[in-house]
């Protein structure tokens, strides 16, 4: 209760002041303090998490760098092996080309030798035939000569032979000699070819 009394009867009396809101800010301040406290705690938690995360990322980055160096070394090694393999492949291809060329040459040489062999065999067969023909011609000429000699002998002693027989023998000798001569001529022509 206040001791002040209103001034009654005076026109300048002032109204009594309203009571000050001493009890209203307290809950708001508490709420604000709570909110700030929560935000502070959240910020601290976030900072802690970021610190923890950054530390892990740093460690992980080191591991990645180490692995990258390992892979880089492997890449260098594989590249060297690849280059070596490429050189070996090129060399093998050259050797293969050389080998195929040589095989073709050898096949050709064999074929040429086969041709020569076949031609030689044909020539040998031809020589055999010529030799056989020459022998036959020689035999026929020998028989011709022998017949002619016998005919001459018969003509020298006509009294010992019948004239008809001599004539028939002469015809046979002439036929034989003609055949021998023809064969000889043919043989000579064959030899001249």
């Amino acid at each position, binding site marked *: 209760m206040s001791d002040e009394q209103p001034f009654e009867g005076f026109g300048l009396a002032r109204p009594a002041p309203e009571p000050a809101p001493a009890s209203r800010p307290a809950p708001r*301040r508490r709420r604000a303090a709570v909110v700030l406290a929560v935000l502070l705690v959240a910020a601290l938690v976030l900072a802690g998490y970021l610190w923890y995360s950054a530390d892990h990322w740093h460690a992980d980055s080191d*591991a*990645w760098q180490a692995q990258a160096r390992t*892979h880089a070394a492997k890449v260098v090694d594989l590249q060297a092996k*690849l280059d070596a393999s490429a050189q070996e492949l090129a060399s093998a291809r050259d050797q293969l080309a050389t080998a195929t060329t040589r095989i*073709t040459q050898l096949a050709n040489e064999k*074929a040429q030798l086969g041709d020569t062999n076949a031609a030689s065999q*044909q020539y040998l067969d031809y020589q055999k035939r010529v030799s056989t023909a020459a022998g036959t011609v020689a035999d026929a000429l020998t028989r011709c000569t022998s017949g002619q000699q016998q005919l001459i002998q018969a003509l020298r002693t006509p009294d010992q032979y019948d004239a008809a027989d001599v004539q028939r023998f002469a015809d046979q000798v002439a036929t034989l000699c003609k055949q021998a001569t023809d064969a000889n001529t043919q043989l000579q022509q064959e030899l001249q070819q």
Partner: protein
Amino acid sequence: MRHRAAVAAAGASIALLLAGCGVVPGFPGLPSAAPSQIEASQLVPASPAPAAPTVDPSAAAALSPDGFDTVQRMAVRIRNVGCGKLSTGSGFAVDSHTLITNRHVVAEAQSLQVSTYDGRDVAVATASTAKLADLAVVRTRDALPSAPQLGDTDPATGSRVTVVGYPEGGALTITQGTVVGTTKDPLNENLGEVLVTDAPVEPGSSGSAALDDAGRVVGVVYAKTDDGHSLLVPVSTLRSILADASQFTPVTPCS
């Protein structure tokens, strides 16, 4: 008033924080403890420049184990040992035991001797000649290394051809040219028209296969003109004659 402003600022901060969560990426999790789980292939560029010579798949398919391609493996050399004469020609396989060559290559033969690209001898079983074309079929006892496919149609003028054979009875030779046209057979050996190409051929090339760019037989060399052109029996004639067995008569050996 200041209290209200502080609350408003805090609210705005939270609102901004929440709004920012919608546009920034999610907060990264903790790194794994095992980075080696990454495969090495993930560290290599997706399409690295070729560091080594490569083999074209089609070329690889055409390669044989001994380094000769199909074009060479199918060609054969034919030696005609006649009665008092010797000649050589070419031919090519159409299956494992059948050769195609020219009629005049096997005519008047006492024996036929066939050899492959690598010098192996192939025993001959029978030989038959066609009546209406300068073609012959030779059956072999031994297997042939390789056989090409026959083309479906005759090559058009301007088409490229590859001739594989043994010119002059020499080494296996591959020549190329183009089809310059068609003509009636000046030798009257073939019924119908024949192909004219500028692929160089020589005596001994008779019976060589003429191939298109796909390696299919499109003709059979049988003659050479005075102006250096080669004459081919077209594949259409070859196909039609092969389809009619009555077209062939066995070769009579000379005596």
